[in-house]
């Protein structure tokens, strides 16, 4: 929709351009900021014009730049040995946003909005993603994606902070992954998302999002029993009620999804036949 309070639009090409005046906000894909009236926003600063590589693949892993759209991430050719790559497809499909939105929405934008149902955030958190944050004072800091959110739509980012990129370590990308989601409609906005990773050394990471206000990360040096996992994910976590599900249902189905994710991780490796059908 038109942002009728906006009176300026700047295209950033240098770090200095990213400094925000009062009322200004950064726009990447624009798919969130243009979806609500945002009457407090009076200026837009376009960061898609920054001279940044959207994606960099190195021996160290994957660097997802702030200008990388979801569609661009999914177009990245498979890297031999990175069994986790399909997790990004599954996460994109777990979004309410359609493939048309993926053409504009960015991965980092999804992380920065920090909604509980942010599935790209779930994928990055599950793969030990770390955000490189350019602060307004010129400093740079690094923070795990999993610890960025402080609530449903709030995070530790301060005014003027820019998430330059998210780095995913190669070790995590070599793990097996799985994603299960459920919503109150088959392909609706998620009420619960459980993602999981099983590393080459058999360590298992399970992440709960959407059902809880902030991501819940469970790390197991060896695969847990189903009962232990279900008990863990149901007993902890800030489950909540909103239009996308009630607290009791979210708590219960989180256990169901976690058990199914664990079974996916421990079952026969589907390899290239991996399906993207991962609703509950």
């Amino acid at each position, binding site marked *: 929709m038109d942002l009728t309070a906006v009176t300026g639009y700047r295209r950033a090409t240098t770090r200095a351009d990213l400094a925000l005046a009062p009322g200004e906000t950064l726009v990447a894909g624009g798919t969130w900021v243009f979806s609500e009236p945002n009457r407090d926003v009076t200026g837009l600063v376009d960061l898609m014009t920054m001279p940044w590589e959207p994606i960099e693949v190195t021996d160290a892993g994957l660097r997802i730049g702030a200008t990388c759209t979801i569609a661009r991430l999914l177009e990245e050719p498979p890297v031999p040995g990175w069994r986790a790559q399909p997790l990004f497809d599954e996460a994109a499909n777990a979004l309410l946003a*359609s493939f*048309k939105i993926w053409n504009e929405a960015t991965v980092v934008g999804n992380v920065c909005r920090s909604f509980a149902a942010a599935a790209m955030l779930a994928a990055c958190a599950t793969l030990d993603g770390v955000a490189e944050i350019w602060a307004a004072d010129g400093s740079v800091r690094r923070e795990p994606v999993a610890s960025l959110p402080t609530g449903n739509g709030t995070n530790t980012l301060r005014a003027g902070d820019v998430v330059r990129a998210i780095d995913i370590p190669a070790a995590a990308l070599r793990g097996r992954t799985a994603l299960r989601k459920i919503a109150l409609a*088959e392909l609706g906005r998620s009420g619960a998302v459980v993602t999981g990773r099983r590393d080459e050394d058999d360590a298992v990471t399970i992440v709960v999002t959407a059902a809880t206000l902030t991501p819940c990360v469970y790390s197991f040096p060896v695969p847990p029993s189903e009962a232990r996992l279900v008990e863990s994910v149901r007993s902890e976590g800030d489950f909540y009620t*909103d239009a996308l599900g009630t607290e009791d249902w979210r708590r219960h189905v989180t256990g169901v999804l976690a058990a199914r994710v664990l079974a996916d991780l421990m079952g026969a490796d589907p390899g290239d036949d991996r399906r993207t059908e991962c609703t509950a």
Partner: protein
Amino acid sequence: MRMDVDGVPVEGDPKPGQCLRTYLRSRGATAVKKGCDAGDCGACAVLVDGKPVHSCLYPAVRAEGRTITTAAGLAPDDALAPVQEEFADRFAFQCGFCTPGLVVTAASLKEDDLPDLDRRLKGSLCRCTGYRPIREAVKHAVRGGCGGECDGRCGGAREETASSAPPSVQAAPASSRETDDRVVGTSARPPAAARVVQGKEPYTFDAWIPGTLRLKVLGSPHAHARIVSIDASAALAMDGVHAVLTHEDAPATRFSTARHENRGDDPRDTRILDDVVRFQGQRVAAVVADSLAIADAAIEALRVEYEVLPAVFDPEEARSGTAPVIHPDRTPEDGVRDASRNLIASWKGGYGEVDAGLAEAAAVATGTWSNARVTHAQLETHGSIGWIDDLGRLTLRTSSQVPFLVRDELALILDRAPESVRVFTARVGGGFGGKQEIFTEDIVSLAVLKTGRPVAYEMTRTEEFTSTATRHPFRVTATLGASADGVLTAMDIQVLSNTGAYGNHAIGVMFHGCAESLEAYRSPAKRLDAEVVYTNTTPAGAFRGYGLGQVIFAVESALDELALQLGIDPFQMRRLNAVKDGDELGVTERGHQDGLIFGSYGLDQCLDLAEAALVRGNGVEAPDGWATGEGMALSMIATIPPRGHRATASVTARPDGTFLIAAGTAEFGNGTHTVLGQIAAEALGVPVSLIELRTSDTDATTYDTGAFGSTGITVAGKAVHAAAIALKARLDSGEAIPPEGLTGEGSTDGMIRSLAFNVQAFRVAVDLETGSVRILQSIQAADAGVVLNPAQCRGQIEGGVAQGIGSALYEEILVGDEGSPANPAFRTYRVPQSADVPDTEVYFAETSDELGPFGAKSMSESPYNPVAPALANAIRRAIGARPYEIPMSRDRVWRLAAAAERVSG
């Protein structure tokens, strides 16, 4: 700045915060529609350099140098792209408002996308069709044919049938071409089809008068408050603000936003702007300004002082006699029965010995069933454009189902002669009852008269939720008794309807809801205690089914419970108890309502057809470990609302051999225009391609009550039929056609009404662990009389089933602390997506109605009505626990199943 739009260079700088959607529309590219303006519905989809995007989320400044393709540019000139041909041929649209965005989306799909088609379509909402024809059209377009899925039947005649069903009853032909001579009984293509799929058919806001001012409304932050003062000085001082309207500008005359043939049908409790607000979001003031940006800023500059009043939100509490009184000054003369109890109307009474009937029953089923508020979610939001025409008339182009009723009421409120007001509609982007109201025309009129300028008010999607109307939430307690052999001994029904802060449609919905739902059964004893009350919540209004679905949910659920208790098959239970041809009907007394007749009777066939389809199955298996169940329900509906529904029409033969139909009724996806052309062509014995239409304009004909109550065929169609017959008589008698044409006139009053029936059946699977419900088979059998346009009628049924599935499983307006919607957006309010709506097998009873025209009956609201109870009954039989509340969302079904397991385990 410069870009290419559909092959034409477009220049001019956008505003910094402007999205591509409004930029394109301001340059005349009106194929780009606004459904939600938030990226959720897809009506605004365009291709940017070949990639599909939602143009409402796309910064316009980013389009510099790019190539934009809208639905109007998918093929050169007036040609149709293959996907557009398929959409037009396969009835893959009804109102057509979502269609330009859908065809653009579909045009970007490839064979690889088809296995995942539901997911590819999830960002494209269609409220009308139920998606089956859309999926079919997309698949055919992508494959350049059926790819074998249609058993080779898609070419040539394009006749399709479900593979397991006998072809004679499965009505699924795609359209015949406009040049065909066949008319009534064939699937004639809608006259606007080509324009709709190209985005070239104009809707309300696709025409614009230069210099039109924009109107924005300030809504109340309180559920109940007196307005102490409004300081508009800062707003009025802003450049570009032309007026601020408050209650001091509004006429004192009270009216109802609901429109009916009889003005007295609804309580006169509303002013255009009032000094008391009774729900959060109610109009407090309106700003008229040069642009929306100025209007937005001016709204924020208004200073309003309120005296907050106590509010009541629960309908039971509202009628207690101790609750805050919402309309203390309204009297029975205003249409409010007892303002001190917030009571608008009641219907109480009964016949036979109900208590004795229940006492002697072998089985008694009882419970209280309730439904959530749902929104119509027609993709075109409400809105109107008003101006003073060259004749000095107040003129309104509006998105309405009832232009004549709007004209007459505006004339009354504004104290003008009706002939000094003209109201017309373009094609309307969906209605479902939501546009049988005055929600924008009154305030626009006031603004036009105050400023003397053209003024437009186009609601946002959020306003659709907060400032129009919802379906009525009912609480229905049903107690049914039956003998051991399954024959009903008594029906005892209590109904409480919550109409919200204003009584638009309160009375009609309550009476209609309790009428055909209870008349459908031949119980020897019935008792009804129904009331409708005000609360300080968003008003409810007319919604497809008009109350019937709410009561039918309770009655059909209770009947299913009796069948379970007695071990009787549910179809047999209906055969034992449902009315038969010629039965005397009754609710609180025995005897038909005035003018209601059995013009035909097809319920017996509907029961047989649905049962046979369920027995036949469709081969779809449940996922491993899921519980399965079958359920069914029936519904009955009168083919016309009671106490009159009038239409006049004319058909004119022109010297050039073509014919012009002039009729009042509006096209909003109901397909009336298609059928009116077919009726006239059949009566005149000419091809439908020679027929032109002029409709939904108070200048077009003398009068038409409007497009509601499922009257497109039974009232407007009858008037056109009479006019065509009159014209034919004149032509047959040898009258010459003068230069101005030869005209036949027709009219009907709708006083005599028939009855139509629907039977819905489902087979479902339920994941007990999550509460997910998957529909494995969906069946509807309909008694529509002679089906005038099989593909179109099938579409009405499929669309009704889809909307029913939405209300039954997904859709729910959550009511916040101040009584207004807490989830006023499609991202949190679940309009069914393609994935949520399976194909429905549709069967028609073979009947011919004596009222006609051509033996036809209405079939637009009614397919919705039996869906929720049929699903509830299927879920009950799958999980062993009965749902009492819709939507039967996954959390609720999980809770029910878990409780049943605890009891049985």
